[in-house]
């Protein structure tokens, strides 16, 4: 009987980039904390007022303090949810827009590089991680351009002639070696 072939399970790679995810996490935490602080301030002052009013008013037709503030608490909790969710949604949309802009510029730049434009800056903007990423792309393009220009000037110099056959052969081989070094 044939045994089924067992393929070893490949571990799922989860890359985490603290420089990208860190600020987003902090921004969401700030939203939640701010929402909580505002909720606390509002509910605290409202509850103080409502309980005092209920104590003075008399006619205690309730079993617990929760019965007094049920509606008030529900409205404030709903407000907290809506406020935090809407602000969080705006942050998500801003993150998406920043990513689209930053990565879009990087993609344009790489496509331009394929057409030979290695000198126009990527222009990913000044947003931390994308700015750094754009600089890395520009550095790679700049290295490539420097290498190509060097080979080109060497090729042009060799083509001009006036070099001894031995030296020409040496520099020819050197040039071939350099060309092999482009995008290895």
């Amino acid at each position, binding site marked *: 009987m044939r045994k089924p072939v067992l393929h070893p399970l490949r571990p799922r790679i989860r890359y985490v980039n603290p420089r990208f995810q860190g600020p987003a*996490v902090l921004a969401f935490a700030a939203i939640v904390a701010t929402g909580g602080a505002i909720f606390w301030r509002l509910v605290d002052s409202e509850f103080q007022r409502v309980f005092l009013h209920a104590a003075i008013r008399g006619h205690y037709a309730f079993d617990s303090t929760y019965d007094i503030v049920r509606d008030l608490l529900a409205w404030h909790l709903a407000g907290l949810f809506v406020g935090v969710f809407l602000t969080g949604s705006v942050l998500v949309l801003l*993150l998406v827009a920043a990513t689209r802009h930053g990565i879009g510029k990087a993609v344009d730049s790489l496509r331009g590089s394929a057409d030979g434009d290695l000198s126009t800056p990527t222009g990913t903007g000044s947003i931390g991680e994308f700015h750094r990423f754009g600089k890395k792309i520009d550095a790679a393009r700049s290295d490539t351009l420097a290498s190509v220009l060097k080979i080109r000037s060497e090729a042009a110099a060799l083509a001009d002639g006036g070099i001894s056959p031995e030296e020409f052969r040496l520099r020819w081989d050197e040039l071939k070696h350099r060309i092999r070094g482009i995008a290895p």
Partner: protein
Amino acid sequence: MSGPEAAGGGPLIHRRYVFGLLLRLCVNFAGGVGILFVILFFALSRSLPGDYEGVFHALRNLSPFLRPILAVSVLVYALLACGSTSALCVYILHKVAGPLYRMELILDQYRSGATTRTVSFRHDDQIQALAHAFNLWIGTLRLDRHRWLATMMDAERHCLQDEATCRAKMEEALRKVAGDMARYR
């Protein structure tokens, strides 16, 4: 969330991904508010004394206890919501952060002169267009490199003939290569 920048390589960030993120955030925040409600419900739903005077005094003396109860409840909510939102952010955003990190490694590798392989992200990753654009650039460079080397090798074949022809063909090849490289600016 496709855009003009992404044309040809699929959308940079899929709408489905953004909606999924918003939905998860909604559930997460709703859960946080639900926990806050449960805490406050249990804190406030203790029965008041049966007599009139007892209720009056209980309500009048509630203020000193109310503030810490609310503070602790909100603190628990904030900690839970911050924790779960952070975990959610890391989990969801790694589909953008991962490819970015990967590309950074590949760019470092490329600059160090090591052999650069074709980039491919995980199938559910966003910004796939970045990998396509990088592969297009490297592919074009490699095609050019092959063409330049082929031109030079073709000239070398003439070295089987006399020295002068060989040299003339080599110089011609060099001019062709230099001219071909002029498109890079």
